[in-house]
């Protein structure tokens, strides 16, 4: 640790004003503050700072994502082995998935951080660490077969139009990772939905007869029949789907980390789940078609609802910030997810759209929560 500190201090003058590598100042600053908590002292205003700054917070989210990443990598290999009738060990499956997943992660980070560094340098800011989490979330919510150029384009679009035009990290109104996914979803629907995109395909081999790469959600949406996978399979995540979202167990471990460290809001997670369950029960009461009649618990384990609820709805920048607002925001996400899934035949999955929609509504919810509080307190004065 000491050696790194000494080395960083030694090369620092090169990057400061007038140094040889001045134009890489933002990049250097990003690395330095990533490695060490910055020892900057405030000159006015508040002098006591929490040592857990934005970078440290973001790293906790990455740690919480690790179970999903590891399981996702294994599941890519596992689904691939199932589809082609291959006999592989657990480690081989993991290896196959990891080799396919790594380039996606590298492209996501490379493009996103590249744009951030250029923007920061141009505007004279330090590099914001907001993309650390987005860059890891994006690979986890796309199909494994996504072409890398498409991903690069989507990441560039999301960082520029989802974040930088609003002023950078902390000013974006919509979740950056979901903007990237929405871009892919609308621009290249053929690569983002259907039966063949979710399972890593080997070009030169035929699939096993009778194997369907459709996700349980797609099956329900298209045919109205219950998927063959059992509830336990879906809970543990042995089903086709986007890389990180299949295993509810891995997501729950992440959720525990987020809640324990106080980084993610348990209110949003819980209210999203309750909202989805509630809407599921309401549809059960009607029960017009098979989809409306399914057990609401299925909504929780299929598709990206849990992943979205834990890692995306809780994004502190785009979620509501009042406590009462969090309940409303989460519940509305849950309700909308199930509503879109069941009622809209064009979109088998509603998590992305529901969260993006509620991101836009979040400031309004906050505004009315604050207003109602002001009104309540004014009334108290009036009575006296």
């Amino acid at each position: 640790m000491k050696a790194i500190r000494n080395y960083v201090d030694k090369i620092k003058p090169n990057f400061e004003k007038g140094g040889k590598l001045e134009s890489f100042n933002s990049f250097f600053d990003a690395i330095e503050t990533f490695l060490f908590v910055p020892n900057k002292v405030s000159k006015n205003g508040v002098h006591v700072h929490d040592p857990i700054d934005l970078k440290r917070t973001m790293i906790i989210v990455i740690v919480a994502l690790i179970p999903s990443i590891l399981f996702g990598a294994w599941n890519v290999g596992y689904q691939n082995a199932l589809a082609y009738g291959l006999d592989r060990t657990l480690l081989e499956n993991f290896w196959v998935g990891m080799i396919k997943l790594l380039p996606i992660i590298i492209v996501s980070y490379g493009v996103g951080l590249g744009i951030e560094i250029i923007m920061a340098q141009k505007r004279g800011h330090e590099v914001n660490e907001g993309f650390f989490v987005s860059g890891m979330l994006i690979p986890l919510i796309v199909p494994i077969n996504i072409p890398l150029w498409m991903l690069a384009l989507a990441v560039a679009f999301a960082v520029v139009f989802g974040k930088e035009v609003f002023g950078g990290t902390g000013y974006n109104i919509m979740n950056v990772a979901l903007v990237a996914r929405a871009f892919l979803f609308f621009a290249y629907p053929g690569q983002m939905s259907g039966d063949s995109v979710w399972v890593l395909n080997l070009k030169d081999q035929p699939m096993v007869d009778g194997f369907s790469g459709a996700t349980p959600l797609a099956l329900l949406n298209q045919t109205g029949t219950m998927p063959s996978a059992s509830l336990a399979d879906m809970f543990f995540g042995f089903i086709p789907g986007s890389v990180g979202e299949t295993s509810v167990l891995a997501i729950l471990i992440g959720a525990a980390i987020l809640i324990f460290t106080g980084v993610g809001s348990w209110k949003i997670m819980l209210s999203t789940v309750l909202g989805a369950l509630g809407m599921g029960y309401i549809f059960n009461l009607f029960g017009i078609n098979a989809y409306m009649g399914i057990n609401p618990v299925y909504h929780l384990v299929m598709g990206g609802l849990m992943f979205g609820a834990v890692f995306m709805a809780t994004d502190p920048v785009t979620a509501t910030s009042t406590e009462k607002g969090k309940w409303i925001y989460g519940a509305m996400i849950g309700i909308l997810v199930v509503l879109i899934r069941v009622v809209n035949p064009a979109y088998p999955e509603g998590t992305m759209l529901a969260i993006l929609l509620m991101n836009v509504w979040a400031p309004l919810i906050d505004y009315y929560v604050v207003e109602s509080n002001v009104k309540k307190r004014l009334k108290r004065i009036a009575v006296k």
Partner: protein
Amino acid sequence: MSLFSKKNIELLKKPLNLDNPVTIQVLGICSALAVTVKLKPALVMGLSVMVVTAFSNLVISLMRNSIPPRIRIIVQLVVVATMVILVDQLLRAFVYDVSKQLSVYVGLIITNCIIMGRLEAYAMANKPWPSFLDGIGNGIGYAVILVAVAFMRELFGSGTLFGYKVLPKALFDAGYINNGMMIMPTMALILVGVIIWIQKSYNKELIDKD
């Protein structure tokens, strides 16, 4: 006064950049989103609006001293509507396929804010010739933005320009796919935004101070 004095040239030049009807005055956005999927309809639409704006300006400017102020909007509408019907008939006669693609949007030129805006702001108070030039200038300013947006949308959304395939087949074989988002009006709005962004970063005086 000569026909193309410095002041008159300025009438033609200003709407192209510093006073562009779409990007600076933010008028006529609706049709800019609707007709810019392909280049050809966008170009025809731009030309139609230019003709209508120019001749409505001319006619209203000729009549400006005899129009009672209280019914001026009605008079303006009658003139604009006449021009639009003429343009519509011409389009049907000579470019029927484009006319069908544009469908209601030719008729909706009547409600295009640029035209009413120029009539109220310029033609009602100026001589016929400058008014005509003002109409031409604003029409070109509108058409330029439409063509620029349509160029990007057709190139990346369909891989064609004026209906001809311009992207090489090798690109598609290598895995390139047309961007479906470009076909949607959403992307037209974002592209107009990008044009405003570029324009304002070149012309610093256009940036709002607050």
